[in-house]
């Protein structure tokens, strides 16, 4: 069965031990759009994001109930986590390139899934870097350690690394919070390009960023999804008072 590009969550609850981190969340994330999750720290937005590729499995004492579907596949029922993560890529808050060359970083995913031929890998590396608008910067430095790149470059390299295995959905967990404004701009531009091919879900602390790039926005507070809708609507005429107070900066 193929993974689709939309995400559907029904009555999801998540506990870290005794702590109720997500409370009865239901939402529909449409395909090939950018959806932003906003809310104060500890509201559960990153936690929800990590449910979509089951990274929460790594957290000890984490219990998840409810239904998470990507396309038609219920991801907590199907056993193959690795195939899920191949289709749902993730970019982390802090850039985390492996201590290898630029080339090996990008080829890591394809090699994981059995591609060994040099010519094929070359092609994938070039395509991914072009897609991430980094080819011109990096084509002469493919053999150099990824750790020598600047923070912004490292983060875009991590995006390119995710792209190399053709994900249908890309999850981004505050991808620009550790970056300067220019690098942030580049990544936002990149998101706008990528949404022609894939669904993007981005967690952000930056309200302007949400308005600039997202089509849909979800506002979270203390584990509840307070409001979910079109970004324009959320920011211009929020239905809930809590949303309004947050986006106008009165708390959070």
């Amino acid at each position, binding site marked *: 069965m193929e993974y689709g590009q939309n995400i559907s969550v029904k009555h999801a609850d998540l506990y870290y031990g005794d702590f109720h981190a997500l409370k009865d969340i239901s939402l529909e994330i449409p395909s090939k759009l950018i959806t932003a999750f906003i809310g104060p720290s500890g509201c559960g937005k990153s936690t929800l994001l990590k449910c979509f*590729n089951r*990274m929460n499995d*790594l957290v*000890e*004492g984490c219990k998840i109930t409810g239904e998470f579907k990507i396309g038609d596949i219920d991801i907590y029922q199907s*056993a*193959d986590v*690795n*195939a*899920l*993560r*191949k289709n749902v*890529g*993730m970019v*982390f808050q*802090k850039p*985390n*390139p*492996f*201590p*290898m*060359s630029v*080339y090996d970083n990008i080829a*890591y*995913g394809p090699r*994981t*899934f059995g591609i*060994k031929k*040099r010519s094929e890998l070359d092609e994938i590396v070039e395509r991914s870097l072009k897609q991430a608008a980094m080819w011109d910067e990096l084509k002469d430095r*493919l*053999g*150099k*350690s*990824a*750790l*020598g*790149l600047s923070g912004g470059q490292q983060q875009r390299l*991590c995006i390119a*690394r*995710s792209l190399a*295995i053709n994900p249908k959905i890309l999850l981004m967990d505050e991808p620009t919070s550790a970056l300067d404004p220019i690098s942030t701009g580049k990544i936002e531009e990149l998101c706008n390009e990528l949404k022609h091919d894939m669904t993007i879900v981005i967690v952000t602390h930056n309200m302007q960023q949400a308005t600039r790039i997202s089509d849909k926005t979800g506002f979270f507070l203390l584990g509840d999804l307070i409001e979910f809708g079109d970004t324009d609507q959320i920011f211009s005429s929020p239905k809930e008072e809590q949303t309004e107070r947050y986006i106008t900066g009165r708390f959070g």
Partner: protein
Amino acid sequence: MNRSRAKEKAGKAVFAGTAAICIIAVVVIFAFILIRSIPTISKIGFFDFLFGSTWAPDRNDVFTEALAGQYGVLTMIVGTLFATVGALAVGGILGYFTAVYLAFFCKGKIKKVFNTVVNLLAGIPSVIYGFFGIKALMPLFGWMSPNGNASGLFLVSLVLGIMIMPTVVALSKTSLEAVPRSYYEGALALGATHEQAVFKTMVPAAKSGITASLILGIGRALGETMAVVMLAGNATEIPTGLFQSFRTLTANIVLEMGYAGEVQMGALFATGLVLLIFIAIINFLMGLVRSDKNSDKAKIKKEWLGALKNKINFSKVGKVVSWIAAIFGGLFLVAIIVYILIMGLPHISWNLLFGEFELGSDSVTIFPSIVATFMTVVVSLIIAIPLGVAAAIFLNEYTKKGNKLITMVRSAVDILSGVPSIVYGLFGAATFVLLFGGSSSILAGSLTISIMLLPTVIRSTEESLKSVPDAFREGSLALGAGKLRTIFKVVLPSAMPGIISAVILSIGRVVSESAPFMYTMGTSLGAMPTGYLSSSTTLAVALYALSRENFHTNEAYATACVLIIIVLALNLLAEFVGKKLQKKLSGDSSNGIRTKHKRKAR
């Protein structure tokens, strides 16, 4: 896709299995020592054995007949305790003040130099300490002794003290440096001087760590064998003076195992059992200190405020004492190295290093020992490194809170690292030697040392696995890679320098140890080994053999010289590689530019 899941499961099972080997090793070692001890103790009589003050074994004693000899180990228990107390007095004080000095009174290059000095002191083989004691210290202190022979409690305490000092320094320093800086700043803000802040605030705050380091030092002193055998004089009497000959439990095993009769052999195993009980007590104390840590921290705040008020001159003298202690350790190291190089280098000859062994000839060659050492290194690494690395992977990458297997493996590793090397020797003699037809062999020796290496390899691999950031693991998993692939392609390569330094440290350990080899591999310098079932001596054992006879003093010096050069080189190499790990993981750009892209032929 089921195949990949099966692979993951198989991988986990293999890692868990290797980790379980540590538990099995502990059980088997204790079982073997117990099996050999209990019949002997019951034959001799529990009280006669433990509290008998006469040790006069008879070679011909057998289990089926009445005993002609006497087998009381009281004098050796007392001797061991005296030696341990003496070593603690010297090494504890030196180590404590050196740790304070390194943590608070020295900076920059001097600190680096002293850290290296402490590491090297830890790396020098105990036969070298013993040899240095015999050749340099005995003549030096002869005038102090009533009979002109300086061997005895004084010299043992001094040398053992220096030997346990690095252990004390390492752990004390770590806990001193872990004290929050805010305590120090708080003390200064109340008007304390640097010295007062250090001795009244920082040191009390690290009390439990320092106590733990002293206990660890005691463990080391209890189990030390070769240096003690060479310096104690070994009479089975309770020492009444600092220069009287006495014997420890470990020495008893080494001295008599070579020619022991049936009951006598059993009594030696029972001696090993007594040693193990001592070690168990030490481990128990260690556990108490560790669990006490939290209550300690609560007390600290009260303590440092209160302590500031009563100013004793200690904080003024303390700095000077710390300085002297560190210098003393450094000087001792320099003295050993310089002395052995000066005495040994001129006698290193082609014939000594690479000559041919001739039966009955007077010319000594250590070539067979060099080959045997090399053979031992190869086999023990082939066994210990994969097992140790796999066990460390299990401990670090598959940890789930409260997993019983992991708790058990951890305590097994703790116990293995505390077991005295001579007990490993006993165990090897009782198992591997018998397994290979009853005669000692390089293979039996290698297997014995392999078990001994496990805790070292596991711990140092685990440290380097811990230093690999979780972000690497998450990144790999998020790309759809399985756990095994993540471990082998991302985690292990990042931890490689740490693993390589574990390899180097292991080589150093094999080269320096002698007690576990003597009765598993052989003690007499002989012909070139023809295979792994040949009996032979490693370099360290060869030095012990040479230093026991007075005919080949020059060759002994030269052998010591070769040994110390190898060990120093290995230690410096390990330190260098260790630094590489940090550079690699911090990812400075200069490193990145130098790395060339390698084409992978896969």
